[in-house]
């Protein structure tokens, strides 16, 4: 039991079960106290007032929301640590730290974070996986509201096992791929479907390595690099100065002798 509560939480979205009712959309709006943005939720888009959407995709549906990456790009790029990956799984935002550089908006491979452009004290807005509810041992509002079991809340490893068994039970229905199991180091929102990730509008081709390693590989070298360059410049300065002194001294000797 202790071990179970220590393992990170996740969501499993099964597009084959989704009936496009919008219960998750409404529950998310209510839980986050977000104003209504449209008459028809199926046409809505992610915004500072909408953290999850349901899109029509061919014959089926697809939910979009923050993927809560295992190694989140947004957390790595934030200069002030305003975004944080909690041990429970959610990626949460600390408004008081944010300086508003919007690097998270630029860098997110899923293009999720939204910004309050019309505010004078703007915030970055996105799904926080109901972090406060999770802390109380409750599921996310969207998973609780889902009448079809399309969005399921649980421990990540248990949900992975469940996704595998669902695919194994109906190999003709599902595409044999759990999106988010390995993509860019894994996400805490897992997606299984009867169509390919590309058809669902999920980015493909980003590889399985977390993106933050792209910049960390460079940043990691800075301390050593600075010391080496600094020492090199110091050395050059000393040598060229010494050369100058020698040249002057020799010049003097020559003039003394003459």
């Amino acid at each position, binding site marked *: 039991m202790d071990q179970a509560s220590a393992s990170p939480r996740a969501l499993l979205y099964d597009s084959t079960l989704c009936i496009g009712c919008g219960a998750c959309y409404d529950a998310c709006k209510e839980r986050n106290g977000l*104003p209504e943005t449209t008459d028809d939720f199926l046409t809505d*888009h*992610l*915004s500072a007032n909408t953290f999850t959407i349901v*899109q029509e995709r061919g014959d089926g549906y697809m939910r*979009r929301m923050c993927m809560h990456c295992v190694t989140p*790009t947004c957390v*790595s*790029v*934030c*200069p*002030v*640590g*305003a975004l944080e990956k909690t041990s429970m799984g959610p990626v949460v935002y600390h408004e008081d*730290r*944010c*300086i*508003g*550089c*919007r*690097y998270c*908006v*630029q*860098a997110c*491979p899923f*293009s999720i*974070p*939204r*910004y*309050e*452009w*019309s*505010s*004078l*004290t*703007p915030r970055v807005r996105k799904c926080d996986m109901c972090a406060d509810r999770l802390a109380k041992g409750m599921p996310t509002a969207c998973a609780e509201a889902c009448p079809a079991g399309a969005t399921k809340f649980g421990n990540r490893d248990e949900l992975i096992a469940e996704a595998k068994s669902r695919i194994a039970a109906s190999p003709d229905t599902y595409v044999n791929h759990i999106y988010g199991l390995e993509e860019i180091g894994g996400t805490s929102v897992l997606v299984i479907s009867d169509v390919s990730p590309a058809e669902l*509008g999920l*980015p493909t*081709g*980003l590889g399985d390595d977390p*993106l*933050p390693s*792209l*910049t*960390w590989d*460079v*940043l990691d070298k*800075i301390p050593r*690099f*600075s010391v080496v*360059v*600094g020492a090199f*410049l*110091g050395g*050059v*300065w000393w040598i*060229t*100065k010494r*050369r*100058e002194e020698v040249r002057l001294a020799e010049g003097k000797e020559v003039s003394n002798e003459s």
Partner: protein
Amino acid sequence: MKARLPRLTFWRVVLILILAAGLFSTVVRFALGLGASTALSDQFPWGLWIGFDVLCGVALAAGGFTISAVVYIFHIERFRPIVRPTILTAFLGYSLVIVGLIFDLGRGYKIYNPLVMWNPHSVMFEVAWCVMLYTTVLALEFSPILFETLNWRKPLSVVKSVMIPLVILGVVLSTLHQSSLGTLFLIVPGKLYPLWYSPLLPVLFFVSAVALGCAMTIFESFLSWRAFHRRLELDLLSDLGKVIVVALGVYMILRVQDLIHNGTWSLAFGSGYEARLFQAEFILGVLAPIILLLIPAVRHDDFGLFASSVMVIAGIVMNRLNVSITGLERAAGASYVPSWMEVAVTLSLTGIGFLLFSLAVRYLKIFPEEQEESAQQRLPLPAVAQLSRPAFSLALALATDGVLKRPSAERAAAETTTTMVHVSGAP
């Protein structure tokens, strides 16, 4: 010396108009927010203020560390007369970058947060620290000029005694900072068009900044000669031209081998939006100036040097804008055209930069005491120097063609999953 060219009056009128528009935009920006003043969106979170004011502002200041390293560290005394104008440029450039950042940051009043809230994994954290530290170093490197004019001996000797460590610190910080602006974009492999995305971005940004810094020095020397008849010797500027050739040569080799290595070389010969902008950038900023400056007759000619350095400046500014704006449009599924208020603020900051530079030249000892140049015998330029004009025209034509081919916002949006965000006035 006091007699001013009538041209200046015209430019003053232009400057006043720009500053008035900039002031209005400033009020809108800080009273109504980014949404009311800019064309930024969730699809396009960074625009002109980051692309030009910050990325180009920093790159244009690169002469500061290049020349101070050459003179103070390598003891190449010949270049000493260039130190002051480049330090001045760098100091003004960095100060304006900070002003630009306060405009752009959503919460500019928290600009100091990176001092106390650390995330060493963030490139932006490195950028923030480099900006703060290097601006301080530049202020100190610049201070002797001020102290001299005010005749403050004590602080002057204090600063001079720590000049060498200061210069070394400045070079290290600049190297880190110039390259870190390229590193910023390493995190968007899926978004930045392959002609610009490269693991070498940090190195490319650094090397091109060195060339740009030297080009800026030539450019400014020429302008201050027109305005005040104060300038640097032509021989020195010609040598700077040689430095540009070396830096651009290294840049070209790196860029080309990188495109071949990444297998994106064939994209460079396309005729689409991105390919055309790449071609314009490469011809204007790299190929044409290298060819021109390799010709001694061009290098030793006022106009030849000036035209070449303008090319370098325009080409590398284009590169920064392509990396930070146009190269991201396709993946964003949205096009970005800066609002007139964004443009007004950018022009105002540039105008203030010119204004402060000219004030400094007039009241401080920036350029060495003028030697009234006897009207130089201008040798006729070799025919090949006329290359500058077709190069400009070609680059302009390519860029125009590219912009005309730009995917329209609706078409791009239809191709991607994300729908455009409509900022409406709805409550």
